[in-house]
């Protein structure tokens, strides 16, 4: 519980500051658009957090998000029906995770290294894939090429993003709802099934899990599969929500946002710690902060500093609370 007190406090402060910054900031339609972004970050954060719980790290996540988004666009551009493209792209993500997992567990290459290389590789793959489209994919281009995809794409966007099929107005935070559903599933596995126990145990001490007869390698591989699959889902969401994407910057640095969300939400980078609720809360921080600086009208040059300092401040206070609570346990 104490693990999420800090992030909860940070969110309260940020929301308060947001609402205080402008009379319109607290209106439902603004909060919905914030929630929508939180949803997308959250989906990716869930994956990153699971990997962190088993004591790993996935730096390729952002590139996988971008690559999946581009792949989604290219597939449809080549005539694959949107409803078929979604599972294909998620399968692609799962394969990426599977490869990462095998390299990490069988060849014993450090996760940091494997996924750092993946970060370059999948960014490159995204750029190669998008080359025929001159590096840009977007929903309108797809629809222009395939008129028949107009309805399914708009339906998909309505369901997953919550944007009106007609003019793209954001009606409800579908991505956030999706996040809550996925977090529920992740939480269920993490806290209610034997698999979750294995993940915590592996993260804390791989040896302990091994001696308890857990198939450590299989568990780790499956977590990487889930992580990258969630990343590719994030890519699909990004494609559907964004007007258009550049293959060289779609999902850029998202792996760091995801790791940030996971750690703010109570995951320890040493592994073996973290809750589903915490992951959701952690992922909620950055979008509020981004919205806040938009509303405050900060100068571009100041924004990164404001975001960095706020997060740092939150992290320090959070850590202090955690240490206090640990002492007094």
């Amino acid at each position, binding site marked *: 519980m104490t693990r999420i007190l800090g992030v909860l406090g940070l969110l309260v402060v940020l929301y308060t500051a947001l609402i205080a910054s402008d009379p319109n900031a607290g209106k439902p339609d603004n909060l919905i658009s914030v929630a929508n972004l939180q949803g997308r970050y959250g989906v990716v954060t869930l994956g990153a957090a699971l990997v962190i719980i088993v004591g790993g790290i996935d730096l390729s996540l952002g590139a996988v998000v971008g690559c999946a988004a581009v792949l989604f666009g290219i597939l449809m551009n080549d005539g694959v029906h949107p409803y078929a493209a979604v599972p294909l792209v998620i399968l692609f993500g799962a394969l990426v995770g599977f490869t990462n997992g095998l390299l990490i567990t069988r060849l014993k290459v450090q996760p940091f290294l494997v996924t750092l290389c993946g970060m370059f590789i999948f960014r490159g793959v995204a750029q190669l894939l998008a080359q025929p489209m001159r590096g840009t994919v977007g929903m309108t281009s797809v629809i222009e090429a395939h008129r028949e995809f107009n309805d399914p794409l708009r339906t998909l966007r309505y369901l997953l993003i919550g944007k009106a099929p007609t003019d793209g107005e954001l009606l409800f935070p579908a991505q956030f709802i999706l996040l809550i559903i996925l977090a529920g599933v992740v939480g269920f596995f993490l806290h209610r099934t034997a698999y979750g126990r294995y993940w915590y*145990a592996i993260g804390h001490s791989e040896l302990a899990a091994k001696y308890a007869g*857990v198939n450590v390698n299989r568990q780790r591989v499956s977590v990487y599969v889930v992580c990258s699959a969630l990343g590719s889902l994030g890519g699909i969401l990004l494609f559907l929500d964004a007007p258009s994407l550049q293959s060289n910057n779609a999902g850029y640095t998202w792996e760091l946002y995801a790791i940030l969300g996971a750690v703010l939400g109570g995951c320890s980078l040493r592994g*073996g710690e973290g809750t589903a609720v915490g992951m959701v809360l952690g992922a909620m921080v950055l979008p509020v902060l981004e919205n806040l600086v938009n509303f405050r009208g900060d100068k571009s040059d100041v924004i990164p500093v404001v975001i960095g300092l706020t997060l740092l401040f939150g992290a320090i206070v959070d850590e202090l609370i955690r240490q206090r609570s640990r002492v007094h346990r």
Partner: protein
Amino acid sequence: MTTPRLQVTDARKEFPGVVALDGVSLTLAPGEVLAIVGENGAGKSTLMKIVAGVYQADAGEVVLDGQPAHFASPGAAAAAGVILIHQELNLAENLTVIDNLFLGREVTVGGGLRVLNRRAMAERGKELLTRVGLPVDRAFAKVESLPPGEKQLVEIARALGTDVRILIMDEPTSSLTQRETETLYEVIAGLKAANVSVLYISHRLAEVKQCADRVIVLRDGRNAGELAKADITHDNMVRLMVGRDLKQFYPKTHKTAADAPAVLTVRNLLYRGGPDIPASFEVRAGEILGMAGLVGAGRTELSEAVFGVRHVVEGEILLNGQPLQVRSPADAIAAGVLLVPEDRRLHGLVLPQSVGFNLSLPNLAQISTPFGVARAQEAELHRTWIDRLRVKTPSAAQPVGLLSGGNQQKVVYGKWLARGPKVLILDEPTRGVDVGAKAEIYALIDDLVGKGVAVWMITSDMEELLGMSDRVVVMHEGKVAGELHGVLTEEAVMRLATGGTAT
């Protein structure tokens, strides 16, 4: 004769550069408690790990109930009922006791979804805890919050929860209190009655005497002998283990002058997180002050306060009569007050680093020049202490984690001795150390004391306490319960340690 539960024939295992097992054989009957003793490095742990599927033998037969049994992993061995309780605890400390009891074999519903049946596990788990004498309210505590002894019992409880046929215990009592040890004996007796076989490894020969049906002794990776129940005596075991008699196990050649001055004086010391009652005692030049007490009596905490790990709130620490400000271990070390910690793997050594790295670590200032560490001087330092302490290591470059417990402990001594200690605080100086290395360490301590070093020795090993100490201070529930001089007896120590008064 019935089929043995386990038969190992001519097991052989080689590691790069070392033959760990060179044709070892043993048989284990159903319901038998077989103790395996030997110095560290004799091959006991390797043998047990082969039986439990952690290692695979290079050659030789392992037969379980008449069936060849070569397990590819601990999981496979566990499935066949062979459970190893490892010397280094293998619990997922971030999980609760219940979670650990059932880790890897959770009670689940929902088929492949494997949804946990928490109620069933809680019930069954509490039953297991009762069997090992742990209070049931521990079930939902996180393992990391338990004292070491209880963690050990949790591991044993975990093994009991399986369909265990052979239980292998590697130094199970090293962190248990006396009472917990008694419980363990009861558990073992219960297992025997249930026809479970037990392989028991311990350096505490008294325990072996108490609970083993039979002893086999290993030396240098070979069978060195076997003792039937009637022949199990301390001397017999030691003779087989070292291949010779140990005459002076506790040497104690030093003589403490009656009027020796106090080197370290602790006066009315209160430290953060400690008891409300201040502690006072002194350690004199050229003496070994033994400090006894039950696990949790606050001895380690007190030593940590003196060493600067814990924040001193009140009272003073005097070194040779001069007040000593200890704000951090660096202050203590600079003053010559050095600590050989209880948990050498965590606090005493940088395990993945080399022997040389560890020896150099506190001595870098002495061997550094403006151009970095003087290589020649450093090599000299390594050579000196590896030779003088007879550390068994291929070279100074060997990762210290690969050495046996006794040799690791010698490296901890070495890094401090190179500094020339004034006060040496020893917290469980020979825990997890084999008999041969123990004798060497005792000789070393005796030699230091003879040179005037003041030694403050915290130990839970009664033989060690009585054999080595010149004077004993007993702690009880965080406070100094009394002091014993002259003829030291176990009864007197225990009376004070359990809250009685000195007569």
